[in-house]
């Protein structure tokens, strides 16, 4: 929708499913930020992710609080926060664990380009 350029928070399983479905169908790269409200590093990297989202509307950015959507976090076996999961057409293509801004940017760039090429 008109949520391009932003990190979309999914607060319910239904919202999650909807956004994932949209993501899969659009064939866009989907980056999911698994976060927690009590997580310091998550807060630190959030503005960085938001900045990237603004500059890359061709990528879908989702945010999931692991306490809110425990089942989703378990499904993706999130062990530590933040964990960034990269998906293309429903398949996990990469993950970045930790507030590693130097790794995050290039990884997003790498998979975003691959999508465009395909």
């Amino acid at each position, binding site marked *: 929708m008109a949520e391009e350029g932003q990190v979309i928070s999914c607060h319910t399983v239904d919202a999650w499913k909807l956004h994932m479905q949209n993501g899969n169908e659009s064939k866009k790269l989907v980056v999911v930020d698994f976060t927690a409200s009590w997580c310091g*590093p998550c807060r630190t990297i959030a503005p960085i992710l938001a900045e990237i989202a603004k500059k890359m509307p061709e990528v879908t950015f989702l945010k999931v609080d692991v306490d809110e959507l425990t089942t989703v976090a378990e499904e993706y076996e999130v062990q530590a926060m933040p964990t960034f999961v990269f998906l293309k057409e429903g398949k996990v293509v990469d993950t970045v664990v930790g507030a*590693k801004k130097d790794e995050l940017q290039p990884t997003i760039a790498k998979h975003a380009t691959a999508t465009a090429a395909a």
Partner: protein
Amino acid sequence: MSHSPRHRLLFSLIRKGRSFFRLASTAVVASAAAIAAPRVASSAAASSSLTSASTTVSAMDDLQTLKTKLCIIGSGPAAHTAAIYASRAELKPILFEGWMANGIAPGGQLTTTSDVENFPGFPDGINGIDLMDRFRSQSHRFGTQIVTETVNKVDFSTTPFKIFADSKTVIAESVIVATGAVAKRLDFLGSGEGSGGFWNRGISACAVCDGAAPIFRNKPLAVIGGGDSAMEEATFLTKYGSIVYIIHRRDTFRASKIMQQRALTNPKIQVLWNSVVLEAHGDKDNQNKLLGGLKVKNVVSGEVSDLKVSGLFFAIGHEPATKFLDGQLELDSEGYVVTQSGTTQTSVPGVFAAGDVQDKKYRQAVTAAGTGCMAALEAEHYLQEIGSQEGKTD
């Protein structure tokens, strides 16, 4: 941002967010004990460690050199208290809060804990992150310039002093080092955060901080360690737990005789010698939400056994964040900055140290805040002294 214990997990302890990532920085802190000086902007795994400080990276900012009367390195209670005092004294301090310095978010160790119940002024307790937000607002309010970059290198060999971060170099007439320390943790299955890990859900590195939590009351607890801290923490925990196991990997403690004595003669303490923890698992009766037990291995016999405990405390030491100083300040044998007794003065006049980076004894937020204040007052005094000699301003 207040946390609301919506969880049925009941106890504040549960939601503690030491949100490190078990793989990355927690592991760094722990085992190797070599906190690979991750002084660069990336969290943990120091990719571009100590190479040229000011010429790397930075798509964003241009290289800037700033001048100040006082530069504060750190982001915890010591650093911000120093900043509050210094900014109110019109020293216009520049504070480097770091970008995931040492693998910890700005705010320091308190951002890794949930409820702080013993900081005076908060009878209902306060969330660690919230408390540090307040500290930060306060120092910001009085004019502290806060830079969210990690200091890579310093040069205290001449005055004015130089502090180097990714995109900023600061030239300062005085410096306060308040970079803190981190409790060492061990890394094994179940020791991290998130699902599958019991950090802050039964596993902690601070008995004083967490021992009184309800989940530990009258339950079997365990302490890993063999030094004075371990003895002390184990003894402390006997006030709360039903029994306290000290799990130690060798067959003798390195603790002082008197501390060993106290622990070994305590009827509620039982020692598991030559033992290491392989794994922590959940409490099945509580849907595995909290720590339920440990798999312990005897390194001599090879035997693995189960130990039912509700709490596990690491008491294997702390690592002060002093590697970035590269030997320019006198450190003690454990890496803590040496300060003259009763002051925050270091081996370099004009450089002061506050908080856990120079305190291995008390390590509390309020004592850190106290030394932060002292450091600011001492820095101010120092500046007056050199100012009156040189007669220069700004």
